[in-house]
């Protein structure tokens, strides 16, 4: 198990379990009652009776009467269309349950959710960014996925390791349909013109960036690699470069940060050196990294799998390839995902049962298999990653190869953590602060948040 396994110490687990039981005791009771209603066979033989596609035990759960649940996710045409097709299939397989699908713009996500919850409304099942789960758990907004239906052992056996980011204090709160990883995009024309191959390690990356960067006087025409700390650069350093350099950036219980260890400082210096030492990139070039790469003005660019889809639309003629992130002492990448959670609106009774069934359905192998080609996100289940259709997809394969060694950061305040890392890089490259002090500043800021977060869990 990696440091990203969310299992906390036994004491911590007990604490959260006690709280959880107190909070959701009623929910569990309702669940047990529902299982009894479903009949002795279902209650006793639940494990083997699970349907082939899902691996979870929701088949044993039955709603007592017609029930409607609200499913909320942000507006992304490809996703909303697919879910609109899936809902009738789910309803046909689960008579008595109706799912109301609500969409809203991504930018309004948290405002919409907050406004609805404050008004006593809102979703029963919510599609949420994994990094918001810890805060939502702290706010007692989410209900843990019941262990008897979604056993942690099954989740961890079937899913890629980054799924543990959905686990807080020993309980899983969400399951993803699909995940994303980071990889290195390279411009084939620019690398070809310079006579270099896509890099596989740190040194080669510097060499390729140097060979491809092109200036006209003092102005860059082509940057060797994009400088995009506020985009994916902060993730690249935080989860990939540090780990590649032998650092485990968090303690196993997610309570302590180790960014300022020498390996972290060295990784930070490596990334900063593209700008400060090698002069192969520029801050603000073409406004941001993805724009520069899409315009064919950047040779290398680190980005997520979702960029494949947007490049297909924004730069259909761009001749580019993708390789896994260049490795160092070891290999590592950053992962992120959107996952389906149950909110406290559906904490008990038929709504809880219906919500569990819907989450089980959305994360089933059958749905994941349809998801990847339609959305461009990667399957979250290990079983699907070996499928020829995906392995042979030139654009997706590097991301899929990265799945086993991709890590999702434990985030208690996503926006501020990102800002802390951006500020650290700005302090070094703009203000000339030494790297160690800059990282210590950022680390202290995020550590304070972690301390405050865990303090609320007693």
């Amino acid at each position: 198990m990696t440091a990203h396994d969310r299992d906390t110490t036994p004491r911590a687990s007990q604490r959260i379990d006690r709280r959880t039981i107190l909070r959701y005791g009623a929910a569990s009771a309702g669940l047990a009652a529902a299982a009894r209603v479903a009949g002795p066979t279902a209650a006793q033989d639940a494990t083997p009776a699970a349907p082939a596609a899902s691996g979870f035990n929701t088949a044993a759960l039955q709603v007592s009467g017609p029930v409607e649940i609200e499913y909320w996710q942000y507006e992304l045409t490809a996703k909303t269309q697919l879910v609109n097709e899936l809902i009738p299939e789910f309803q046909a397989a689960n008579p008595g349950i109706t799912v109301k699908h609500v969409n809203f713009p991504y930018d309004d996500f948290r405002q919409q959710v907050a406004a609805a919850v404050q008004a006593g409304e809102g979703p029963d099942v919510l599609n949420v960014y994994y990094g918001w789960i810890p805060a939502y758990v702290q706010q007692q907004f989410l209900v843990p996925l019941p262990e008897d239906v979604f056993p942690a052992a099954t989740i961890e056996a079937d899913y890629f390791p980054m799924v543990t980011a959905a686990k807080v204090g020993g309980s899983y709160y969400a399951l993803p349909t699909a995940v994303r990883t980071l990889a290195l995009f390279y411009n084939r024309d620019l690398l070809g013109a310079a006579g270099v191959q896509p890099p596989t390690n740190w040194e080669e990356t510097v060499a390729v960036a140097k060979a491809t960067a092109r200036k006209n006087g003092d102005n860059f025409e082509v940057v060797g690699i994009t400088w995009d700390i506020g985009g994916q650069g902060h993730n690249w350093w935080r989860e990939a470069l540090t780990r590649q350099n032998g650092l485990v950036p968090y303690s196993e219980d997610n309570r302590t940060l180790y960014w300022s260890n020498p390996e972290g400082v060295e990784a930070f210096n490596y990334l900063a050196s593209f700008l400060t030492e090698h002069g192969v990139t520029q801050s603000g070039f073409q406004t941001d990294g993805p724009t520069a790469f899409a315009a064919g003005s950047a040779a290398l660019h680190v980005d997520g799998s979702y960029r494949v889809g947007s490049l297909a639309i924004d730069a259909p003629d761009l001749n580019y390839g993708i390789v896994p992130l260049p490795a160092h002492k070891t290999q590592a990448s950053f992962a992120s995902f959107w996952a389906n959670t149950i909110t406290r609106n559906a904490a008990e009774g038929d709504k809880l049962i219906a919500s569990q069934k819907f989450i089980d359905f959305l994360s089933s192998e059958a749905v994941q298999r349809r998801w990847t080609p339609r959305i461009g996100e990667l399957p979250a289940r290990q079983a699907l990653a070996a499928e020829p259709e995906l392995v042979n997809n030139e654009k997706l394969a590097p991301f899929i190869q990265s799945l086993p060694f991709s890590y999702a950061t434990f985030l208690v305040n996503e926006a501020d953590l990102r800002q802390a890392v951006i500020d650290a890089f700005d302090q070094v490259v703009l203000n000339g602060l030494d790297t160690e002090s800059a990282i210590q500043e950022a680390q202290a800021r995020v550590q304070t948040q972690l301390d405050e977060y865990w303090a609320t869990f007693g």
Partner: protein
Amino acid sequence: MTLERRRWVWAYAFIAIPLLFFLSIRIGPTLFAFWVSLHQWDPIAIERPYVGFDNFAALSDDPVFWKALRNTWIYVLIGVPVSLVVSLVIALGLQRLTRYVGFYRVLYFAPYVTSLVAVGWVWRWMYMPNGIFNDVLGWTGLGPFNFLGTPDTAIYAIIATTIWQALGFQIIIFLAGLESVPPVYHEAAAIDGASGWQQFRDVTLPLLNPTLVFLVITGVISNLQVFTQVRAMSSQGTGGPLNSTISIVLYVYQQAFQALPSKMGYASAMTVVLFLMILVITVFQLKVLSRNNNDY
């Protein structure tokens, strides 16, 4: 009912509807923000405990808030005077034009009716290291400058955009003010031998005072509330680099809507501070700046 009484009833009936709207859409939420500022207010949390003035106390210890406050005053103290001088100069020029007057007025007014976000992005492209400004500077051998990426220059780059965008509105108001100056005063001053500058200083400017007061007050308020340009133009939209461009309203937005968990109470405390600041300044400006006007 007497005729006078009936009139009175009708007058209040007509006033009542906008008053109701104003109370519920403007005054109500403002008072509610005062209430929220006294709580640890997270819309999603089950409890929102009363914390008294803790949020205000925390503000005084928050270096980012002080930075935002300082930046906001830079937006006001540089943005307002410069834009007023530039727009007055252009308005005086436009007033003298006799041909294509409409064309020029449309030209100068166009930025004002353009979306601030669109303006911000276009300027962002012009400011970038390989943008048009640096291309021009490159001919003279200067640069390239990363205008928006350098803490020392970023805020002034944003102020320049704000000024450019606000010019149209101020020019139109100034033109209206200039039109209202009766030509006889200028003729009389000219007969008395006043030079152009003397006429401007002693006739035009004093008579423009109501216009100036209006533009100063609206300019100060809109600069105290600066948000959109900073969000659209600063690196990553976060008021960077290193908080060098962050404004109070942007910080309010970040704390209320981007922080997790949402610090709605803390953000409301900032809006209360901003509200009091605007109130005091506006009352002060009305008293001081309008006083001259009463002499005429």
